[in-house]
């Protein structure tokens, strides 16, 4: 049982790490701000979500698990809205330069 | 070399880097940033002393930890005051430097 949980952790965290890498590659390679925002959102949502999922198999107690999930939800909500704000700034071209 | 020593050396270099920025950069806001970099380095040095004092089931000596927390808050207050002074200077002179000719 424990071994199975450890295996699930390894799989989920590895997948999460992969998405972080994908987000960084997108940030570096995509030509314009809007597609970079897209890449960033993917990394945010999936990478952290999978890492949290992996860690859920390790924590003890429902409160610790709840806190882990709320960290993810908070990042998701804040990240999505803020990314929208940045995307709007990029679209309107109101960069200070 | 232990992890604590490694971060101690990191803190030592940070203090030197921040001091350099404080002396060399002519813009006051950059000097404020450099001052905060020095602060981070000093706190790190102190934190290494705390980490080496781990005992009695605690991960570090709690007295330096409490002093570092106090230090971070006071450094913030000093930064806020410095920025208010700088913005007032800008309002009065229209300049963001400390040159004596303006």
């Amino acid at each position, binding site marked *: 049982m424990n071994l199975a949980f450890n295996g699930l952790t390894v799989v989920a965290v590895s997948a999460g790490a992969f998405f972080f890498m994908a987000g960084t590659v997108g940030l570096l390679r995509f030509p314009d701000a809007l597609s970079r925002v897209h890449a960033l959102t993917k990394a945010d949502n999936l990478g952290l979500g999978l890492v949290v999922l992996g860690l859920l198999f390790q924590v003890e107690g429902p409160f610790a698990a709840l806190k882990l999930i709320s960290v993810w939800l908070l990042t998701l*909500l*804040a990240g999505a*809205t*803020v990314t929208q*704000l940045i995307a709007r700034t990029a679209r309107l071209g109101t960069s200070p330069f | 070399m232990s*992890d604590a*020593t*490694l*971060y*101690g*050396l*990191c803190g*030592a*270099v*940070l*203090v*030197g*880097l*921040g*001091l*350099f*920025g404080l*002396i060399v950069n*002519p*813009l006051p*806001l*950059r000097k404020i*940033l450099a001052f*905060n*970099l020095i602060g*981070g380095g000093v706190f790190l040095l102190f*934190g290494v002393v705390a*980490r080496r*004092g781990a*005992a*009695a089931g605690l*991960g*570090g*000596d*709690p*007295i330096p*930890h*409490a002093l*570092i*927390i*106090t230090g*971070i808050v*006071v450094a*913030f*207050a000093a*930064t*806020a*005051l410095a920025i*208010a*002074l*700088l*913005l*007032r200077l800008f*309002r009065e002179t229209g300049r*963001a430097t400390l040159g004596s000719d303006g």
Partner: protein
Amino acid sequence: MAFDTGLAVLVLGVAVWTLAAHDTFAAVIGFVTYGLLLALVWVRLAAPDVALTEAAIGSGVTGGLLLGASTRLRRAEIQAAGEKPGATLRFAAVVLCTLVSAGLAAIVLLLPEPAPTLAPQAAASMAATGLGNPVTAVLMAYRAIDTLLETVVLLLALVGIWSLAPDGVWGGFPGRRHQADSEGVLTFVAQLLVPIGILVGIYIFWVGSVAPGGEFQGATILAAMWILVMMAGLVDAPPVSRRWLRLLLIAGPAVFFAIGLAGFAIAGAFLAYPVDYAKLLIVTIEIPVTLSIAATLALLVAGPPERAPK
């Protein structure tokens, strides 16, 4: 070990970038990153209380303050960018700073073995305070006078900032009035985040008596949430001459000082607590102190009055 080496190198790299960036705005973003990485370092050094403080104040609120200042000073700084010190001064600075770093590094390498520590004493006396977090016990009991003076220092800094107000707006509204966002995204962010943030702030404050957390970290989050609703244009900052605001600001230090004085009568020394009531008294101090610190921090960020009181 490899992880720690990488993290240390990353911290140094971000520090160099913060100093070397041409644009101050970019330097400030470097500084926010620096604070975030330091929070990771504090976790590695088994100092979660410090990590919480660094994440909240060192990175978050200081970052917001510096971002605001850098955008307001931007054009003036672009004009002033040409002024560079001479080669001699730069060389002297390199020599001096290398010596300082080398000296500190030598001290780190030559620290005494075994390391001096007060951890056993702190752990042994913790039972007398009724607290479960040694750092909070230090802040609120063994070195409570430091904490009391710190709350006063914060107030003095605020008085210093307020005294920078020009005559015409004396006692007026701090900072600029932010317009509510026309497309509603900022309003949405504020309405969504602020209730969660207040909950997290209270939780971090409350958990501080038994686990990492405490009044400074909780207060910083509450302050950040107040600044957030002001930035989103949902509420305006109050004029600094308001009586309720002044009372809120001094309530924490005043209660702290009063209970400290009462210590003479009930426990025989300034800021001494009788063992049976130690935890109750500490919590009685902490609640108003948290609210006062939160208000002070938010107003420190808001800056001196810029608009006349109505």
